[in-house]
């Protein structure tokens, strides 16, 4: 019976798969080429699950510290859940949810990525040489996420920490409901920048189509200059352009003692 329940003895943890889309019996393929403390995975013929099992085998069982993945073929969820310090290079473009839920790796992607790259990243860095889709850095908690091209909509939605740097343009609803952390946008920003943000800082060098609710210009400090210079230096991004800074106006959410009915009158 396709996909209902994992076969007896399975250790995969997959126990419900109504449409037969999972691979409950998958094991690390063991096809990577290992050279000392580095390894190379050719992902051409591997499913996402096999890529990730192989990656975790190399990092957690073989003790390899630097892995290069080639031919990722826009497959989804590549490199999710890596929870140790290491270096991961990707030659090509992974698909959606790449390197989500990671805690520690330094990731370099020599290509573009689909939606939701580095979602919920806790620590480490992800550098993308090309463009990225929507929801890049969603719910980012820590670490640095650098995109050298453009990104889609809702960059850093629900961001809780860390730094997102975009060298190109960003789409609508960037920083939506952002709670903490920083976004450094070198290009233009779409409508509703920082809508309903709680806290954090957004720096924009280009034009802004419109600010979202409760997103207001912020006062520039030496700490802002130091932060931007430091991040540009770390990632070799050249001389930073001039930025405008935006912060939360702290009028929308519960930063006061107003009743909801009173708040409608005040805002």
């Amino acid at each position, binding site marked *: 019976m396709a996909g209902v329940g994992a076969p007896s003895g399975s250790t995969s943890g997959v126990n419900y798969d109504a*449409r037969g889309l999972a691979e409950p019996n998958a094991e690390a393929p063991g096809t990577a080429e290992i050279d000392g403390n580095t390894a190379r995975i050719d992902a051409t013929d591997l499913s996402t699950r096999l890529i990730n099992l192989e990656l975790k085998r190399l990092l957690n069982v073989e003790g390899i510290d630097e892995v290069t993945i080639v031919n990722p073929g826009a497959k989804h969820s590549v490199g999710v859940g890596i929870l140790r310090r290491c270096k991961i290079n990707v030659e090509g473009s992974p698909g959606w949810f790449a390197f989500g839920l990671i805690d520690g790796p330094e990731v370099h992607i020599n290509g573009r990525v689909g939606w939701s790259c580095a979602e919920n990243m806790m620590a480490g860095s992800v550098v993308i040489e090309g463009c990225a889709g929507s929801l890049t850095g969603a719910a980012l908690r820590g670490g640095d996420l650098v995109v050298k091209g453009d990104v889609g909509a809702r960059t850093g939605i629900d961001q809780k920490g860390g730094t997102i740097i975009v060298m190109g343009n960003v*789409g609508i609803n960037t920083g939506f409901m952002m709670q903490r952390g920083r976004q450094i946008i070198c290009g233009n920003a779409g409508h509703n920048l920082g809508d309903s943000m709680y806290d954090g800082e957004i720096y924009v060098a280009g034009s802004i189509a419109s600010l979202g609710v409760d997103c207001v210009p912020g006062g520039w400090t030496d700490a802002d200059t130091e932060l931007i210079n430091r991040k540009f230096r770390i990632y070799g991004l050249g001389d930073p352009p001039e930025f405008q800074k935006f912060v939360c106006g702290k009028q929308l959410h519960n930063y006061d003692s107003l009743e909801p009915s009173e708040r409608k009158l005040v805002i």
Partner: protein
Amino acid sequence: MCGIAGVIHRDGPADLGAELTRMLQSMRHRGPDSTGYALYGPSDDLVVIRFVLSEPRKAKGLGMAERLERNRVEIETRLNKIGADVATMSSETGYAFRATVRYSGELKPLADYLEDVPGCEVLSLGHSLEIVKDLGDAETVAEQYRLPGFVGTHGIGHVRMATESDVDLASAHPYWAYPFSDVAVVHNGQLTNYHQWRRRLERSGHRFQSECDSEIIAVYLAEKMENGASLEGAMKQSLDDLDGVFTYLCVTATELGVAKDEMAAKPLVLFESDDLVAVATEEIAIRALTGMDVETRDPYEREVLVWQV
């Protein structure tokens, strides 16, 4: 969720059936319940009619083979009565048919007359459009209908994950813009003013084959074009008239267009070269088409893009 894909060759016809199958199969995870194609072959003087006489799951019942044959004969009789000279009629499944007819009259009376036969649903009518859809993933449907080898210039496809309605043909995309020739739509998203637009279009004399909000888009666009709008103009207007979150593709005999709503909440990736334009919900589908790493981009909110064959 669902997945959509489209391809347009600007350098002449190609094996659209095989290409779209590769794209759609790569997005099987977005919807393995049903798969559909709107393919544009060489334009012909003949009118191509794709129709079904039963839902696939009901076609195997007791006495159904005889009933389907009886109804097929009735279709042929009605085509002759209305002045459509049947050139060919074939079926790969026993319930889904392809007919070519010589016919120069209005398409609406033709479609209505045929759909009066019990179980009949006209999937598409046109001089080059052919809509094929059935239950299962892309490889299953393509094999069933022998789609690899279908040569044409452009087409769109859809993989569906049934979330709010049944797994059946009526809910499967693409939708033909009844009763307008050679217009079809696939859609990923939800329209929140569906009932309002359905009532408006029904008051204008249109009828709908399904309860699916996506069908609204097809008829809405075709009506605008019938009234003189370009495809691009109609699609731009739709961004103001249609509420909800959506990304959709619309094809006519000569064009392929994409539109993204103002929230850009539904994904789409675009690859464009001098010879080929490919769009898909996920980049993995574009890789499946090109077989190599290509530069793609995500259109932004409220973007409407239209390409000519």
